[in-house]
């Protein structure tokens, strides 16, 4: 991942993401959330689960974002919430990108019947209402953030499969792949050594575009009670507490803003990365 970032950094093109203000804003926001998450115990003013304030205190100097129904400090819970939302969204994207890339690679490389079968399956998943399936799987496995990640992975892989398959089909037409096959490389070797450099860039960019979506889905499941469970401080489930007490605006507003800023930041970065790629790959990603 850092190697790819370096590649982007080295490119001197005017479209390089380091020249794009939105990308810089995105990176700063994500860094901020990362620091808050890592150093939560030192930064958070209160224990996220301590119930020692009064309930439903409005935002004040003591409690910047007020307190919730169970007397807990919302700002502290949001800081701790970053420890759930960010890593699990990244994990989810990593899992679905890996799964999707493997399926897409098999499909593109094998071709023929295997390819058409796998692509039909992918079509079916595209036609599927992802959140319905994710809700069902999460409910069946038992409401836990870990299970929500599994559930969303099952519905989120097809975009990667389709991208990787397309890239492999393109690359297969390139001479060096044919040459390498003629020289007797095994299929696996061809795929891993020769094709991977062509794939890693676009897959990475697609993944960066999908982190925001992953966070939205995960926190949505938690909002519905199918993800992280109380008393865990998770942004989505904190918003759902605000839904129950919607007249206390601060209970739901601030955790939602936390989700919004994080998703927005990921989208800023993903968008800029896509623009930094060469136009043809960028087009493949848009399609």
């Amino acid at each position, binding site marked *: 991942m850092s190697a790819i970032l370096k590649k982007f950094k080295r490119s001197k*093109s*005017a479209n390089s993401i380091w020249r794009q203000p939105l990308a810089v804003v995105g990176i700063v926001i994500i860094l901020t959330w990362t620091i808050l998450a890592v150093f939560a115990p030192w930064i958070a003013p209160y224990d996220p689960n301590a119930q020692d304030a009064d309930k439903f205190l409005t935002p004040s100097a003591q409690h910047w974002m007020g307190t919730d129904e169970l007397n807990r400090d919302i700002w502290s819970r949001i800081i701790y919430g970053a420890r759930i939302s960010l890593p699990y969204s990244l994990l989810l994207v990593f899992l679905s990108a890996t799964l999707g890339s493997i399926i897409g690679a098999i499909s593109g490389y094998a071709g023929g019947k295997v390819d058409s079968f796998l692509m039909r399956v992918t079509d079916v998943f595209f036609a599927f209402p992802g959140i319905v399936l994710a809700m069902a799987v999460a409910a069946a496995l038992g409401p836990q953030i870990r299970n929500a990640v599994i559930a969303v992975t099952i519905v989120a892989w097809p975009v990667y499969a389709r991208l990787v398959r397309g890239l492999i089909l393109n690359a297969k037409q390139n001479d060096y792949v044919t040459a390498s096959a003629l020289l007797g490389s095994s299929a696996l070797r061809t795929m891993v050594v020769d094709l991977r450099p062509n794939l890693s860039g676009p897959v990475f960019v697609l993944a960066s575009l999908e982190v925001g979506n992953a966070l939205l889905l995960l926190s949505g499941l938690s909002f519905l009670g199918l993800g992280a469970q109380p008393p865990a401080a998770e942004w989505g489930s904190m918003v759902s507490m605000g839904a129950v007490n919607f007249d206390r605006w601060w209970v739901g507003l601030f955790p939602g803003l936390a989700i919004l800023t994080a998703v927005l930041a990921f989208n800023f970065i993903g968008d800029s990365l896509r623009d930094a790629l060469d136009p043809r790959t960028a087009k493949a990603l848009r399609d």
Partner: protein
Amino acid sequence: MNLLTVENLTVTLATGSGDAQAVRNLSFNVGHGEILGIAGESGSGKTMTALSMLGLLPYKGKASGSIKFDGREILASTKREYRDIRGKEIAMIFQDPMTSLHPMLTVEVQLTEHLRHHRKVSKAAARNSALELLATVKIPEPASALSAHPSQFSGGMRQRIAIAMALACEPKLLIADEPTTALDVTVQAGILKLLHQLRKDRNLSVMVITHDLGVLSSLTDRIMIMYAGSEVESGATSDLLQNPRHPYTKGLIAALPGNSEVNSKNLLSIDGMPPELGNFPSGCAFHTRCKFAKASCKETVPEVLNLSSDHRIFCPVNPFSELSNSGSK
């Protein structure tokens, strides 16, 4: 007076690594009813020169200098003024008729939309002009061609349609950017003949841009050779082709098919690749590929050297001066 007088035209484009000059200090003119050919390899700035006549430079491109058309300065035109020039005063045909005609609009719409806009004529009158135009460019069955889409025509026919489109508002100047490059050789000849005919019938001034000197030899009155955004040599067609004086022009002519015996001297072949935009060499940009280059060529930008009233080169070394003195009258 000339129809078009360009002075010190410089075009700056935004590239990946900052701004770059695609055209540098270019000066030339086109007389009434004259056909000027501009030749050069890809990247020599010839297309950008053409586009700047119409204010159609690509995104973030800028032009400076002076372009006088029909006595008026047009380089500093507003968008609205440019729109009154485009199509009506100066028309352009593009290299690839496969992509320059709109795939989803009928030939009639594409032939008449600017006519109706500029001349405010009725739909029926525009249709009649369109029929005439199609006959002029020798499209068979003009009436049925009007309702067809471009994809129903071959490349040569499409280019004829594109020419008809350009002629619709009877412009004074026609700019043809590589009008035959995308076409088969047999079709090329027909298009060139058509352009020649049009000039004769309509006293049309034409600016033809190409990388193919062969195309220019039979068609043009004068030729300007460009390299890396600058003029290297210009002159009357026959003079320039028979008596080229710049090493680059010599090389280009030697490279033409059928000139192998000249080429065998091996002095004239041009090695290497044309420089890329943003990487133009210093001094005389051609010095990196020139067999006659001296140390000073790297340093100083060449001044104009007038050989006659109508033949000039930009090469202080002028290596073929003796050769040509004996040859020219």
